[in-house]
């Protein structure tokens, strides 16, 4: 097929025509936009020379009142109309938001997409994100003097399907063409030019931001980046370091700030100042002014290190688990990239350096490094660097599967599978004449559907009526290079097809993803038990259904009243046990039912063999009965 020949990037771009492309780090707290200028990646500043755009949008009756620093400065005076940290909400359903952030005011609407109530009306997380992206877009276009061909936007490595989809939707809303979503750690590694090295390299990216911690293990082989594993803690970051210092100030000074928001703010500012000071100095002076709480003290670097030690230890535990997942020994790590403002803390650098047994990379501004890498990738994808060998291979962050009988998850694409990927799995009907089948797509590591996240449901209709087990329904999961999922299903014998794109009405909160992975480890044993129980229940239901059908048909013909009551008793016992939660008891009752109905089954079988001789069909009761 010749179709692919004409579409090679680079060839389709006329020489000398440089396409304007940008990389965007759409962060929880701050966002940045960068581009490659004269071969060098550069962060683009606003007209006041500020590179960082706080990810904050303020609305008023006329619509958007301010974006960025100006909006953030109003966060205290106009909290309800000032939206910050919207990245934490993207891809979440209204219930998710209500559960995780009970204080947020949601617009009460019939709509399934949650809206934040503002003076300008209900705003979705996608719309708010789009405002931030629009501001970055116009900044870039002003600065570059032309329209952007496309952008690369970075997302956390653990973002699930709906969160990625929502991010792409926001970009579209802002009028941006997304060349690719890439993972933040990969972007940071690109910024350091690790892809330029000749030898194969294994990289750890340690990202300690304001409120989240991520560790990713990447592998680079001849210009191909692979994410081997990711781990982290979505409730651990610079804010926790600040809180530790605040607690210390409170302990030392005897000042309690718990019921005084103003004082709390003051102590927080002092704590942050001390933290920044201790990045160079050995000691920080802390002076609390005011009538009732005047206090002055000294925090030494050693004291500070002790304060934050437990927090840093937590990050090291995550590093261990990521290495474990990747199947890599700590000694095999060749480079350690530091990302996020909190990696300026010396104790963090030292501890990480000691753990990995090597110097860590800190030469690029840890706030800018992700945006810079995205700019490099955008430049390549826009076709400005046809000779580039750089290729990013990403993985699925959480296993994808579908619900099977009894509320069990059947994993179809397991966590850390390289994308794009297509997997087909065959399913069958379990009732005679079944013509429709519902597929419930879930994401998560646990065995039971109720413990995973529901991504969507779709129905396959028009299956030709067949005997249970004869339809062959092939379900194909396809995840593209951005990590977005498409599910399709085809009944093989008839060719009936159905297709669904997962709608972004649900999503996982960051901490859910992490806890889901941890839970799958913790609950492995419990899950095995529940799985066995569910399997036995399904078996019990099936057997009873088949038995009832058979009894109704010819129970009287083949059984004496006595025999019949023995079977009824055994059936009753199965029904009783089925509603309990002891899988062994169900199994036992099933076995008893099997032996009670042995004679009946034999008689039916003999009779049906006779019927087949005369060209009639066998009822499949006996087959089902003996599989238990």
């Amino acid at each position: 097929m010749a179709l692919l020949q004409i579409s090679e990037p680079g060839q389709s771009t006329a020489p000398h025509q440089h396409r304007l492309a940008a990389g965007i780090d759409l962060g929880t707290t701050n966002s940045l936009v960068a581009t490659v200028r004269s071969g060098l990646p550069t962060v683009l500043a606003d007209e006041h020379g500020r590179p960082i755009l706080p990810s904050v949008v303020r609305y008023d009756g006329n619509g958007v009142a301010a974006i960025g620093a100006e909006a953030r400065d109003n966060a205290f005076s106009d909290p309800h109309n000032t939206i910050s940290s919207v990245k934490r909400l993207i891809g979440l359903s209204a219930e998710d938001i209500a559960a995780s952030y009970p204080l947020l005011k949601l617009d009460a609407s019939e709509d399934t997409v949650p809206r934040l109530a503002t003076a300008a009306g209900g705003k979705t997380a996608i719309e708010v994100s789009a405002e931030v992206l629009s501001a970055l877009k116009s900044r870039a276009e002003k600065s570059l003097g032309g329209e952007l061909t496309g952008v690369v936007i970075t997302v956390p490595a653990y973002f699930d399907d709906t969160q990625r989809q929502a991010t792409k939707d926001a970009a579209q809303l802002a009028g941006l063409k997304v060349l690719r979503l890439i993972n933040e750690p990969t972007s940071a590694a690109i910024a350091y030019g690790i892809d330029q090295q000749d030898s194969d390299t294994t990289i750890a990216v340690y990202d300690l931001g304001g409120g989240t911690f991520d560790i990713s293990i990447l592998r680079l082989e001849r210009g191909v980046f692979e994410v081997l594993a990711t781990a982290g803690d979505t409730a651990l970051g610079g804010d926790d370091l600040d809180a530790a210092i605040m607690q210390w100030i409170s302990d030392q000074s005897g000042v309690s700030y718990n019921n005084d928001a103003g004082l709390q703010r003051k102590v927080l500012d002092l704590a942050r100042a001390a933290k920044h000071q201790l990045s160079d100095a050995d000691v920080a002076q802390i002076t609390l002014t005011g009538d009732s709480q005047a206090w002055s003290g000294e925090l030494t670097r050693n004291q500070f290190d002790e304060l934050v030690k437990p927090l840093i230890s937590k990050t090291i535990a995550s590093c261990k688990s990521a290495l474990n997942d990747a199947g890599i020994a700590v000694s095999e790590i060749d480079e350690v990239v530091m990302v996020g403002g909190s990696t300026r803390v010396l104790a963090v650098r030292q501890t990480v350096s000691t753990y990995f047994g090597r110097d860590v990379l800190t030469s690029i501004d840890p706030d800018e490094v992700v945006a810079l890498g995205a700019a490099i990738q955008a430049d390549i994808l826009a076709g400005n660097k046809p000779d580039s060998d750089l290729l990013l291979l990403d993985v699925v962050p959480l296993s994808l599967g579908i619900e099977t009988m009894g509320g069990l998850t059947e994993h179809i694409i397991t966590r850390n599978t390289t994308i794009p990927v297509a997997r087909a799995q065959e399913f069958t009907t379990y009732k005679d004449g079944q013509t429709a089948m519902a597929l419930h797509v879930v994401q998560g590591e646990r065995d039971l559907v109720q413990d995973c996240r529901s991504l969507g449901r779709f129905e396959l209709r028009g299956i030709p009526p067949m005997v249970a087990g004869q339809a062959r329904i092939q379900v194909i999961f396809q995840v593209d290079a951005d990590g977005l999922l498409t599910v399709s299903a085809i009944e093989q014998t008839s060719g009936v097809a159905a297709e669904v794109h997962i709608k972004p009405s649900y999503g996982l909160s960051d901490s859910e993803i992490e806890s889901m992975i941890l839970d799958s480890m913790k609950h492995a044993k419990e899950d095995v038990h529940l799985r066995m129980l569910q399997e036995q229940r399904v078996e019990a239901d099936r057997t009873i259904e088949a038995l009832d059908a058979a009894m109704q048909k010819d129970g009287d013909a083949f059984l004496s009243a006595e025999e019949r009551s023995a079977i009824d008793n055994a059936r009753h016992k199965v029904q009783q046990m089925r509603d309990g939660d002891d899988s062994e008891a169900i199994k036992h009752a099933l076995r008893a039912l099997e032996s009670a109905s042995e004679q009946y089954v034999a008689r039916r079988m003999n009779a049906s063999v006779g019927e087949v001789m005369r060209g009639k069909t066998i009822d499949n009761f006996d087959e089902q009965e003996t599989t238990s």
Partner: protein
Amino acid sequence: MNTATPDLRQNYFELFDIPVSSAVDKKQLRSRYMTLQRQFHPDKYASADDQHRRMAVQIAAMVNQAHDTLSDPLKCAEYCLELQGVKIDAETDSAMDPAFLMEQMEWREKLEDITDTQDNSKAADSLGGLREEISQRVKEIGANTATKLDEKDTAAARELIRKWQFLVKIDREAQIVGSRLDA
């Protein structure tokens, strides 16, 4: 750059242009994988039209699936057996060599003992020993499977692969026990 579109009906070995064998040369496989990715990864078509992008996703997905299969020794052996016309459907025939089943049961008991051990470092030691033992058996079985597949002795290969599946399963359980010890 070679831009010929691969035939999606090829088998994985043909796609990767490597000899059919359950003992795949890892270096060769890796090198071919990189070459194919470089040619067909959707990023190479980021500025192309929809149709080409869809095509690239399909091809890259097949390349990934093939790599996934061929780089996992057990999956690769199962695939080789399938190419010889035999499916490894574990449900149709559950008969198993009694000596092997005994060994399985012993390992499972050991694993349970390890789970019950209070002393973590002692448990970790015994677990290491057990996993070493399993890994030795996997190596043996892997080598034997390759031989039987070469000889086209599908019955023997199938029997070996089924044992192999058991071993992989118990090793995975051992791994879970291990991660609980670390936690």
